[in-house]
C-alpha cells in the first residue's frame, strides 16, 4: 500500500527529532520543577508532584480526544491509519491516566492523610481509566481487523464524554480535590508566576513525549497492518 508506506516514511524522518526534543525538554522541565521553582507556602516541597500530576492528567485528556478524532476519522473514511492512531493514543492515554492516578495518590497521602478517598474527581478519573482499559480489552478480544476497528471507533466516540465530566467533576458536590486553578472560566490562572511557568514547561515536555510515543507506536501498528495486508 503506497499510502501506508508514505505515512511510515514521513514518520521515520520526524521521529528522531521528536525524540531529541522530548528528551531535552524533559531535562529542562525536571530542573525547573525540582530546583528552580520555589517551595509552596502551605505544602512545602510535596507540592512539586504537581509538575507530574497535572501534565499527565491533561495529556490523558489530549490522548483521549485524539482517540475520539481518529475514531471519527475511521468511521468516516475507513482508512487504516486512523485505527493505528486510535490504538496508539488510547494506550498512551491509559498510561498517562495511570500516572496521574499514582501521582495523585502519592500526593494525597501527605496532604489528605489517605491514599484514596471517595470523591468525584478521583472517582471519575478512576472511571475514565477503567473505560479505556475496557476499550483496549475490546480491541484485544476482537479477532479481525475490520470489526475491531469499527467497534473500537464507536467506543472511542462514546467514551470521550467522560473527559469533560472528569474536568467538571470538582464543581459538583463537596470536593476535596483542588478546584480548577489554571484552566478557569473566570480570570487568569491563580498561581505564582514561576510555578505557572514551570508547570507550562512540564506540560510542553509531556506533550513532546506524547508526540514521540505516538509516532513510534503508530509506526509499529502500521507495520503490523502492512504485514497483514501483504499476507492476503
Amino acid at each position, binding site marked *: 500500500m503506497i499510502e501506508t508506506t508514505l505515512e511510515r516514511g514521513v514518520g521515520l524522518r520526524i521521529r528522531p527529532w521528536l525524540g531529541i526534543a522530548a528528551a531535552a525538554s524533559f531535562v529542562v522541565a525536571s530542573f525547573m520543577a525540582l530546583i528552580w521553582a520555589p517551595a509552596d507556602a502551605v505544602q512545602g516541597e510535596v507540592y512539586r508532584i504537581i509538575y507530574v500530576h497535572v501534565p499527565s492528567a491533561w495529556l490523558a485528556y489530549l490522548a483521549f480526544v485524539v482517540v475520539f478524532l481518529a475514531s471519527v476519522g475511521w468511521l468516516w473514511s475507513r482508512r487504516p491509519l486512523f485505527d493505528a492512531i486510535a490504538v496508539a493514543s488510547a494506550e498512551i492515554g491509559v498510561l498517562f491516566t495511570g500516572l496521574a492516578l499514582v501521582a495523585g495518590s502519592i500526593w494525597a497521602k501527605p496532604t489528605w492523610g489517605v491514599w484514596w478517598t471517595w470523591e468525584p474527581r478521583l472517582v471519575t478519573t478512576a472511571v475514565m481509566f477503567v473505560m479505556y482499559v475496557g476499550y483496549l480489552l475490546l480491541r484485544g478480544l476482537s*479477532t*479481525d*481487523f*475490520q*470489526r475491531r476497528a*469499527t467497534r473500537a471507533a464507536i467506543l472511542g466516540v462514546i467514551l470521550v464524554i467522560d473527559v469533560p465530566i472528569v474536568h467538571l467533576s470538582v464543581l459538583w458536590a463537596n470536593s476535596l480535590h483542588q478546584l480548577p486553578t489554571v484552566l478557569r472560566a473566570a480570570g487568569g490562572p491563580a498561581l505564582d508566576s514561576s510555578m505557572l511557568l514551570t508547570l507550562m514547561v512540564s506540560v510542553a515536555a509531556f506533550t513532546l513525549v506524547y508526540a514521540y510515543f505516538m509516532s513510534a507506536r503508530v509506526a509499529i501498528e502500521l507495520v503490523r497492518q502492512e504485514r*497483514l*495486508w501483504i*499476507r*492476503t
Partner: protein
Amino acid sequence: MRTVQGDASLRDVTVIFDDRPIIRGLSLEITAGLTLIRGPNGAGKTTLLRVIAGMVPIAGGERRVDGETLYIGHRPMLLRGLTARENLSFYSRFRGLQDAAVADALRGWGLDGKMDRAVERLSAGERRRAAMARVEIERVPLLLLDEPFADLDEGGITRVRDCILSARDEGRTVVVATHGHPELDALAALRLLMNEGVARAA
C-alpha cells in the same frame, strides 16, 4: 473479465478472519438466473454468500448489490420462542409486505398444524421448510441459499428444487451453494468452483 452488468458484483474482494484470508481477491458478476457454488468443505462457500449478502466486513475490494437480498444459511435463522408464522410475518412486514401470504406458504411447505408452534419444537426438516417458505413470501430479486436441501425428505427436496427453478424462471437471481444435487449443474447459468477462498468458473 465479463462486462455484463449483474445484479451483484464483487471486485477483488478479500475477507480475513483471525488474520487468515478466507476469501482471496475474488471477483464475480452475478446476473439473473441460477448460479451454483461448489467446492469442498471449508472452501469458503458460506463466507462468499455472506459477503454478497453484506453480512461480513470485507478487508479489501468492492461489493455492489442492486436490490434486496434474502440469505438463508446453514441454520434456519428463525428466532426461538416465536412460532414459524410469527417469524415469517415479521420478516414480510419488515419488507413492507402484507403478512396474509404467510399461512398459505407455510401450509404449502407442509407445516399445516405446526406453524403455531415455537420453532425450537419443530424437527430439523420442519424448521428448514419454514425457513425456505421465506423465498415464496418475501419475493426479493436476489436469493442466496446455503445448502437449502439439508435435512429435507424426498418431497421437501423436490419442493426446494421447484422453488429455485421457478424463481429463476421469474427472472430472479438465485445463488445456491450445495454439495449434492448434480442435476442442477445443467440448469445453472454460472457454476463456480471454490477452493481455499479462490473461485473459478467451471
